[in-house]
């Protein structure tokens, strides 16, 4: 018996979002990145319906991380004190599509660095690489509200993706992103109802929905990936069903979450295989799993995991 061809068509689609501004559009980027546009679920429908390829944003931290496991840190020892060089390495050697600058060092519980530092890092990275940037706060509301508007201003004209805004803290950064014409990341804690709420809140402030990318929070393999998967899937289905408040492309943070898993970093674990392989495998598996639920931008860290994931993307999205 032949296998019947199951075809489902949808009325809605994921918004298409273009990040970065070249000289013609008033920025200094040498290239732009477009994501989204899907008119079907991943693997569903025709190649055209799959639309834009997902992309990998590699993490660059504003300050040298002191808690990265060796298997990860060894790739960056030479550049960890220079975000510009670090970004360059990710692009030139590891094939990153864009760079996500994570301002870990401004967090009051970490290095508690000031806005001047963050602005300097932003300028350095903008100068070092020509790809579009993602600029990501520390997660401390008060400090982010002080620092991220300055970061946004430093990147004015570059059409970056800046974040994140949450249900309880969205006004400052939304207004800033609106003023500086950036794209914005709305952030929810693995809760689709709150995700929609944040989108409504920023939209109600007059922020254009077509310039929003959602971050649903990410769970790594073994650490809640099923929640992340089902939320991403639900977001995609809502977008395809025509829900304007859920039609944004999605970003996920696979690098950080995967390298928190003890399976990625525990060296002394006989029977688990070489620790050098485990982390990249954990990261790649998490990313590939979430790609199938429908995410558009994946933040990643290990070059081998990035290579595996990009290979997967290139085979599926042709």
């Amino acid at each position, binding site marked *: 018996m032949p296998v019947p061809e199951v075809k489902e068509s949808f009325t809605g689609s994921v918004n298409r979002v273009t990040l970065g501004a070249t000289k013609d559009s008033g920025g200094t980027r040498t290239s732009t990145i477009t994501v989204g546009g899907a008119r079907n679920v991943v693997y569903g429908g025709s190649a055209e319906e799959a639309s834009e390829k997902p992309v990998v944003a590699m993490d660059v931290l504003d300050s040298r991380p002191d808690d990265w496991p060796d298997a990860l840190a060894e790739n960056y020892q030479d550049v960890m004190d220079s975000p510009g060089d670090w970004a360059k390495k990710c692009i030139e050697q590891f094939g990153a599509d864009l760079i996500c600058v994570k301002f870990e060092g401004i967090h009051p519980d970490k290095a508690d660095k000031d806005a001047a530092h963050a602005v300097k890092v932003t300028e350095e990275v903008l100068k070092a690489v020509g790809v579009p940037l993602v600029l990501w706060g520390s997660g401390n509301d008060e400090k982010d509200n002080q620092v991220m508007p300055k970061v946004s201003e430093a990147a004015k004209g570059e059409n970056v993706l800046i974040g994140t805004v949450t249900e309880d803290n969205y006004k400052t950064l939304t207004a800033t992103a609106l003023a500086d014409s950036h794209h914005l990341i709305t952030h929810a804690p693995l809760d689709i109802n709150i995700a*929609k*709420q944040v989108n409504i809140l920023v939209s*109600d402030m007059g922020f254009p929905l077509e310039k929003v990318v959602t971050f649903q929070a990410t769970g790594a393999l073994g650490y809640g990936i099923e929640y992340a998967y089902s939320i991403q899937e639900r977001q995609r289905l809502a977008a395809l069903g025509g829900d304007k408040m859920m039609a944004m492309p999605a970003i996920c943070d696979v690098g950080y979450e995967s390298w928190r898993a003890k399976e990625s970093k525990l060296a002394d674990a006989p029977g688990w295989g070489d620790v050098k392989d485990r982390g990249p495998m954990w990261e790649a598996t998490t990313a590939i799993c979430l790609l199938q639920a429908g995410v558009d931008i994946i933040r990643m860290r290990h070059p081998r995991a990035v290579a595996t994931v990009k290979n997967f993307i290139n085979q599926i999205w042709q």
Partner: protein
Amino acid sequence: MIIIGERINGMFTDVKEAIASKNKQPIQELAKKQTDAGAAYLDVNVGTAAADQEGTMQWLIETIQETCTTPLCLDSQKTDVIAAGVKVVNAENGLLLNSTPLNKKSDEEVFDKYLEMADQAGPKTNVITLTMDKNGVPQDTDMRVALAAEIVQKAMEKGFDTQRLFVDPIALPVKVPNAQVQVGNILNAMDQIKYLADPAPHMTIGLSNVSQGASERSLINRIFLAMAMSHGLDSAIADALDKDLMNVVATSDMLMNKQIYSDSFLKVYTAANKA
């Protein structure tokens, strides 16, 4: 839920006056207000304000589209008035032709003409089709469903996507003697119309008709709307400026799991149109 804002209609005094004095401002304001309130389409009906209905339809369309990109719903019982509108309208974001019966005594081919006009206007142009024919408005469930079936079949034969059809089972004023029974008939008809094709045609209704001449009009409208939505109604020509009504739309959508819940669920339509 697709709300077609009903306010730009020459039957309303403010619109009638604006048409008579060719004053664009009140029309453009109504377009913006209804869009902000969550209307997905704006109904455009010249009413009885002007002798030159075709010219007035064109003037209204051009006036609205000078300042507003919300898709329009060209509303007339006269094919020529719709045709005049199609000539000047920008249908890039969508368009509705409102409306045609299956056939008329004076024009057997009226339905076909509407499908042709829709194709002429572009692929995003949809057609509202009333479940009535040359014998008039059906008074029971079965006749409504039979007419809807014929409409759907005829569209399919013509290669017209059933998702571009908005079937209107015709709401009648509840206050008219013996018309109260029609509400139940309409709901029963809706239960069956949604199975006539896969994907189903849209279903729409001239909501304010149901409360014509009655007291507590807004209340009647919104309760009927909630009931009809639970029977598959996915569009209505209604007063988008009636906030209580729009709240019922948002709440019904949410309760039926058509919209993902959020604490600001009442804002889903207004916020989407604001940004």
